[in-house]
């Protein structure tokens, strides 16, 4: 006789959003949370009704807890953490989950401290309600950990879990706001509004390193990305430090972790810290004049050549 193993856990997903749409990373967090038990989503924002509507229609969400108040407009951890603590005290979830993003990293550990819980960061696998796989040492040592805590707080790597699909129908309940902490004031968000494909969810990523030599040469990679379609442009720490491109393009251990269908590494050597950010890509190709560059060792296809010759040929030939 086959018995379905029922999950006894109750997971709370702290939804990341921009008051208009749910972030794709949160949909990955929902999938991870679904492996732990019944999922409730917490949406706190200002003017964020469309987010509540959207998440309530995501498969796997049983309930939505919503609060709309000025202090939640910009995702400030000083305001979010007390809210998470209050919701936890009132509902006694077994797990609190969010994506391991700027938002998740800011809020979850602070909430964990308020709840006297050791959180688990950058989770790349869920074995059961108490056993998780996480990445350490720039992805060179994967630790399987077991928690004996009644509450577990997890930030999950978005590229390690499929995004939850639409098709759900959750009930929505309002929760009370916890107020403005008065500790921090939001001044501005300086973000790229060009509408280019998002680095962490694009199907293909083309990244450039020091081999590009000058900022204007990144035009080559943007042209290649345009030709390929649904392709984002990334960069190494070196060229971000040099001011060639902005910081949100940085792929690496402490930058963005990406796992696209195809990663094309152009003029970058493949330092340990960069590999940490892209070695889970399905297919990796590289173009580099140095045959000894470490990037070749993780590439499925390596072209030893000059990118200034190869990239235009690639654009023309695709």
């Amino acid at each position, binding site marked *: 006789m086959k018995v379905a193993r029922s999950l006894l856990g109750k997971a709370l997903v702290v939804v990341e959003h921009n008051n208009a749409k749910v972030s794709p990373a949160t949909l990955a967090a929902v999938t991870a949370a679904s492996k732990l038990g019944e999922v409730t989503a917490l949406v706190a924002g200002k003017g964020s009704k469309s987010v509540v509507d959207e998440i309530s229609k995501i498969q796997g969400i049983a309930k939505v807890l919503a609060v709309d108040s000025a202090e939640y407009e910009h995702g400030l951890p000083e305001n979010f953490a007390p809210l998470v603590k209050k919701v936890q005290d009132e509902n006694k979830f077994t797990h609190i989950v969010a994506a391991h993003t700027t938002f998740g990293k800011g809020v979850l550990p602070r909430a964990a*401290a308020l709840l006297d819980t*050791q959180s688990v960061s950058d989770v790349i696998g869920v074995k059961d309600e108490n056993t998780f796989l996480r990445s*350490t040492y720039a992805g060179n040592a994967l630790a399987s950990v077991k928690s004996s805590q009644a509450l577990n707080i997890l930030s999950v790597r978005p590229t390690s879990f499929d995004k939850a699909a639409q098709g759900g129908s959750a009930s929505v309940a309002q929760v009370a706001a916890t107020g403005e902490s008065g500790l*921090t004031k939001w001044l501005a968000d300086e973000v790229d509004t060009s509408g280019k494909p998002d680095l962490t969810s694009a199907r293909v990523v083309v990244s450039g390193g020091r081999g590009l030599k000058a900022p204007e040469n990144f035009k080559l990679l943007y042209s290649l990305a345009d030709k390929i379609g649904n392709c984002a442009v990334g960069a190494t720490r070196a060229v971000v430090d040099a001011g060639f491109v902005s910081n949100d393009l940085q792929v690496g251990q402490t930058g963005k972790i990406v796992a696209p269908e195809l990663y094309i590494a152009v003029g970058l050597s493949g330092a340990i810290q960069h590999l940490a950010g892209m*070695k889970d890509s399905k297919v990796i190709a590289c173009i580099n004049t140095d045959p000894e560059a470490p990037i070749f060792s993780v590439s499925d296809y390596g072209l030893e050549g000059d990118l200034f010759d190869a990239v235009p040929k690639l654009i023309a030939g695709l």
Partner: protein
Amino acid sequence: INAEYMGTPSECLFFFEMTLKALVSIKRVIDYTVKVRVRPDKLGVIKDNVKHSCNPFDEIAVEQAVRMKEKKLVGEIVAVSIGGPKSVEVLRGSALALGVDRAIHVKLPSDNDDVESLAVAKILHKIAEKEKPDVILTGKQAIDDDSCAVPQMLAGLLGWSQATFISELEVAGKTAKICRETDAGMQRLEVSLPSVISCDLRLNEPRYAKLPEIMKAKKKPLQEITADSLGVSTQPKIQILEVADPPTRAAGRKVKTVEELITKLKTEAKVI
């Protein structure tokens, strides 16, 4: 808070310079250039005879505190490190030798001992209660554990503002204006002091220690205490079952021309 009298007696000018006290937390980690290897018993990584150094993001935190002291924004810098006996090396070499005034070593029995983020935050909380800093500076994450949690947890325990992943810091009286690196770009905040600040790559470029400062560092105060003496337990709440190598990729091959690359990507890998 330090006060300084400035001015000549005849002018009777009292100029109270209010400087801040900075507490900087640093960690001794395996050097970022080392290719880390999992131990044969699969319970951790090989640390014996492996090069260790100060966590690079913590070096940036030390540098920031020293620059603030040079600008007379900060009066005293205290560094703290939680670790085994060899952590003294990073306290002397990467903190005291760079301009930090004194150091506290929260000594663990062995250099192989790890302490979870919450316990680290609790230890720092206790030290902060005693030292009463105006700013606590540390790196945004330790490159060994990659948890990226301590600064946020500490801010939660203290009930202070948190300024994480900062690339710009401008202190002005009771607040600080910061710019931080986010997934989408940059964010600007104004945080109230006292604050817990975690430093990102582009905040500054750390200096190298110079010989005269290295010599002076040997005489600077370095106090050794234990977590027990602070009333904090380092018992882990999470057990490490196994540490494994990441999945290895199948060996790739070199292609000779762009045409060959395109063909392979289209017909073999089927990603274009």
